[in-house]
């Protein structure tokens, strides 16, 4: 994993809506954009616009945190935690080791 990929991942995580989408996909994988929007209303009544979700999903897909499959001609999204684990290992973990800092 290079520095650019690391940037993409932390940038993808640096937004509450994208973290919310990640939370939703963790509970329920294999969701279409429509389903993610519908579930966001059900969750707490705070709907996210389809346009906003489209952009957030693009960014999550670019970061590698979301894997896309197709159900017929419908785009289906699932989480892929592998890049996140790598990012943790190569950067975060170093700082979290016991004895370092406070």
């Amino acid at each position: 994993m290079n520095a650019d990929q690391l940037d993409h991942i932390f940038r993808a995580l640096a937004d509450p809506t994208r973290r919310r989408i990640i939370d939703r996909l963790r509970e329920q994988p294999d969701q279409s954009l429509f389903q993610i929007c519908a579930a966001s209303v059900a969750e707490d009544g705070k709907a996210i616009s389809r346009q906003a979700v489209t952009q957030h999903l693009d960014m999550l897909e670019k970061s590698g945190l979301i894997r896309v499959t197709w159900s017929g001609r419908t785009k289906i999204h699932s989480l892929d935690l592998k890049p996140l684990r790598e990012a943790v290992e190569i950067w975060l973990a170093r700082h979290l080791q016991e004895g370092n800092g406070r």
Partner: protein
Amino acid sequence: MKIYVMSVLVDDQSKALEFYTKTLGFVAKHDMPIGGEDRWLTVVSPEDPGGTELLLEPSGHPAAKPFKDALVKDGIPAASFKVDDVDAEFKRLRDLGVRFTTEPMDAGTVRMAVFDDTCGNLVQIIEMIEK
């Protein structure tokens, strides 16, 4: 003013009539030639034969395909129908070979599911939930 007809753009009217009547259970109401191969083809719910008609409209217009494809890609239904029991309807339709993109799920005040109408559209079924 009343809403008497709403349309879905279908790839093939004969195939659509088959699916919307034999599979979904609607009833044909009007079927008239309107030029060329195209028909004025509507169906109604047997629970409300005098109610709003659904026009199975030919999708020959050049804008229809990109529009329909974009909706399908994002999983967005072109029409939404109300049922008493989404889970029962899901099982019935699935057993008839209908392909669902969204299995029954709660979405606030409704329970819903989304399936492929075989004519280029996704269709939503909803059940109102008492809360």
